[in-house]
């Protein structure tokens, strides 16, 4: 290129294109996003965090939790299961209707021990004609939609994270690494703020083999008061404070625990539906049975 104008023009064209694509376009599309209704409950989602949890978000940012914890779960598609809930009054008609979709289902054993999942289909479009046939036969059925993928199997969420989940976050911290588990739904998995506090003080006390650093600087070691502080941590074994002392969380620790408990991105939304009943994993780190 002989002229500097051409250099600037090239740079300008290239950069303004991506600026339009990755800055302007999402702002136009999502910048005015507002609360939506969950399905089918029609609750508002998301709601702003309560005060202490909002302060905790600042602690989370300030401590750089994002360098080890993502807040973004993914899913590999969905599983749609048709669950027969009521055989209706005309068992023969129901079995005939079901038999059209799968010869095995036409047998009388299908109607025993209801409700049960009878068929797995690719999506809601595939489920519709089956549901229609079942209801014309006088029986009742529903579809259970659940998300699939390693994040779901680990119990880290019930659906993938969507843009709506971040609506009121500032800063939005989806994270880029998982040295520790994803926290998008940590409040659903570990709803007890005291557990969160004990875990922050001594991660290995709560999760065996944890590689997370302890955050002892968020706690105070105090001589045992009379009476003992209500907020003192209940610790045992190697992690317990020396006799005559107690471990008391600072305001920052309590705020952070409140924030962690408030982290749940598990409302069923139009763009990420699920209907499977809630069954949180026993622990973040336990394998799937």
């Amino acid at each position: 290129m002989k002229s500097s104008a051409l250099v600037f023009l090239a740079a300008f064209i290239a950069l303004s294109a991506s600026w339009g694509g990755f800055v302007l376009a999402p702002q136009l599309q999502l910048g005015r996003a507002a609360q939506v209704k969950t399905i089918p409950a029609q609750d508002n989602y998301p709601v702003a965090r309560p005060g202490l949890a909002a302060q905790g978000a600042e602690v989370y940012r300030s401590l750089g939790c994002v360098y080890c914890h993502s807040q973004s779960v993914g899913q590999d598609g969905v599983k749609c299961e048709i669950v027969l809930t009521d055989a209706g009054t005309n068992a023969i008609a129901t079995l005939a209707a079901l038999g059209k979709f799968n010869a095995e289902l036409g047998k009388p054993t299908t109607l025993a021990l209801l409700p049960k999942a009878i068929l797995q289909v690719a999506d809601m479009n595939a489920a519709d004609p089956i549901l229609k046939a079942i209801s014309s036969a006088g029986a009742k059925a529903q579809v259970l939609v659940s998300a699939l993928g390693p994040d779901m199997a680990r119990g880290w969420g019930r659906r993938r994270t969507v843009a709506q989940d971040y609506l009121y976050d500032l800063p939005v911290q989806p994270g880029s690494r998982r040295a520790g588990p994803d926290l998008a739904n940590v409040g659903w998995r570990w709803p007890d703020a005291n557990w969160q506090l004990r875990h922050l003080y001594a991660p290995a006390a709560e999760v065996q083999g944890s590689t997370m650093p302890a955050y002892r600087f968020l706690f105070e070691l105090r001589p045992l008061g009379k009476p003992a502080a209500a907020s003192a941590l209940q610790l045992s074994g190697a992690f317990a404070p020396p006799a005559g002392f107690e471990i008391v969380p600072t305001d920052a620790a309590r705020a952070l625990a409140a924030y962690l408990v408030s982290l749940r991105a598990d409302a069923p939304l139009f763009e990420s539906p699920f209907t499977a009943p809630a069954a949180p994993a026993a622990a973040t780190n336990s394998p799937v049975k």
Partner: protein
Amino acid sequence: MTAIPPTSQQQIDNSCRLPLFALFGGAAVWLALSSVFGVFASLTFHKPSMFADCAMLSYGRAFPAWANLLVYGFCLPAGLGVGLWLLARLGRVELAKPWLIVVGAKLWHAGVLVGLIGILAGQSTGFEWLEMPRPAAVILFLAFMLITVWAYVTYTRRTEASLYPSQWFVLAALLWFPWIFSTATLLLQILPVRGVVQASVAWWFAGNLLNVWLTLAGLASTFYVLPKLTGRPLQSYYLALFVFWTLILFGTWTGIPAAAALPAWMPTLSGAASVMMLIPALAVVAIVILTVRGSQTPCGGGPLCFTKFAVGSLMLATVLLAISACPQVSRVTDYTWFGHGQTVLRIYGFFTMTMFGAIYHIMPQLVGPGRVCPRWMRINFWLVMPGILLLALPLVFGGIAQGLKFIDATIPFVDVSKSTLMAFRISTLGEFFIAVGNLIFLFNLLAAMVGYYRSVGKTAFAEATALQPVGVKP
């Protein structure tokens, strides 16, 4: 305009000396400090609770301190310094207003200091690669603009009209950074946008900073230093033009991860752009091979060594970037240490090494021959080069192993985390080598500057105390 006689090289070097001392000297200090934070951050993986009583050195603060000192402390001022030198030398013109550029450089380093204090005190913004709090961001922006203005004035005053490829890259870099940095600071810190748009802006910024700005500034130097060192012309002008266009066209779209909770076209486009980045990278490799081929210049741990290693790292980092943009691979590598390995290879392996090469090429011309110790330079190379490989490769392979274990949900997460520890511990060794190398770089540079000032002082002293009045210098 009347024809101005081309400025002599000595005059150009004189005008560049102080600004480049200010930019390179501060950069070397930040680089050394950054690698100390890198070692601290790394140590957390050896003994998780090592800094449990010290918020400042906890991983969540030491890591962003490492990253920001590396990028804003070292990469940007070093890149600016080399860029200014290229504009002056290639334009055959003295640097315009060197003292204002010195002010800009000092202001920049002050901004980095404010940012570092902010991060350590917990005032990080929470956006990766943009952690420095608002006051620091404003200072950095003003400092960059101050330097950019005089860089541009220097460029317009050039007496050599025809443009050399390095100049395109410098000019584009001068335009790029203020644009992306002001957009990101404005939309994330001053008038924050809502919800996930923040994430999109932050990813766009990081992609443009790491994949475009660093590459532009690094290649500007590569395309100048290689022909200088080998005594062969750049092969070729048109390949360099091709690199320029493809780099800015594709690179600017990179940065958005596959798993982003954004409209699907965005991560898809970003992934495609990441794969396309192979095109400029391959062209760069072709340029380097064609230019260096047949040259008799020994590598010997000098600037040529640094530059060659840098280009190899750029290629490797780009291959990793392209691979991890494929959905089948990103499924495994997303959220693992793989991405960090790629970034480290790009920043340390490519950019820092390019800058080492360029600075070791430029400094002797500023401080006079014999003041930059070639022996320490070689030691610097032989520490940093294996250090980078020891740091980046375990992260890459460890990241793949981590990802493969992760997608098997029957493996408990604690075991997944633990499986990366060995890789991480090897990488600490790399951090340590790099830290020592960076310290040697700092001392080598400072010693050269001090040596220069002492000789200037001696001459001045001799002149002042001479019996006879000193006339025109011979």
